[in-house]
């Protein structure tokens, strides 16, 4: 906007939330992929686990944990890891 000095720096932080089925819970997708790999000649693969990755930009990264507990993951069946990206 003319007349305005430099825009306020964007304070948002990029974050990645990695969500995986908890250990001890049968991961049916992971097992299926594990069984499929040898069919293509990829031997020696074990413990395939399939989860999902959520990327988001947030103003307050301190709240990501709560977002995970309440929506992004189901803590009863899933573990999650949050990593913040340096800008």
């Amino acid at each position, binding site marked *: 906007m003319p007349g305005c000095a430099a825009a306020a720096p964007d304070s948002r932080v990029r974050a990645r939330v990695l969500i995986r*089925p908890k250990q001890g*819970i*049968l991961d*049916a*997708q992971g*097992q*299926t992929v594990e069984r499929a790999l040898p069919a293509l000649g990829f031997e020696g693969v074990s413990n395939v686990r399939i989860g999902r990755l959520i990327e988001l930009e947030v103003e307050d990264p301190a709240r990501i944990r709560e977002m995970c507990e309440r*929506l*992004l993951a*189901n803590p*009863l*069946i899933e573990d999650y890891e949050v990593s913040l990206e340096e800008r």
Partner: protein
Amino acid sequence: MKFGVVRFPGSCDEHDALLACRRFADAELLWHGERDLKGVDAVVIPGGFSYGDYLRVGAIARFSPVMEAVGEWAAAGGPVLGICNGFQVLCEAGLLPGALLVNAELRFLCRQVEVEVVNAETPFTSTCDPGERLSVPVKHTTGRYFAPELELDELERSGQVVLRYLPGQNPNDSRRDIAGVTNRAGNVLGLMPHPEHAVDALTGSTDGARIFESLASLSPA
């Protein structure tokens, strides 16, 4: 006595549920965007794919206005029946214990199963005999009931396990063959089998009608 059947975007069994309810009482649809339960005496959360199963099955539906009202209704002791996706929604909403995982075989299953009425002293099974077998269909991809071992012990001790797949008929590797479970207070039931698809001899079984008949026999609130 009046049933209310919730319709979310992506619900698909609400009409069968409505017809099953109407065999025994009045029934009408409740729109997900409204907080008004229209004075119904029992709420049914039907099967389907609410909100496209985005994020996790059942995860988004709990934010709809109608679910706020359902939460308050359940907390006040009102009966709530969640079928299939309705079961998933109630678990995600924290109104039922546990969670539903993708079937162990990773496939969509559609078949008739037999379940045993483990607890006939609930508002949902009061017209059944204890141990009675009901033949009802299942049709789902995400129906493997899971709860931690200690919680499962507690559910069994407190009579919250209401329906169990008969030996050898557990279609999805649900823990302890659980097909239907209630909350601690006993007024919210979730089940994966579809009683609303088993109310007419034309489709092979009328056993599912017992669930609706039981609810309809409650005195109006």
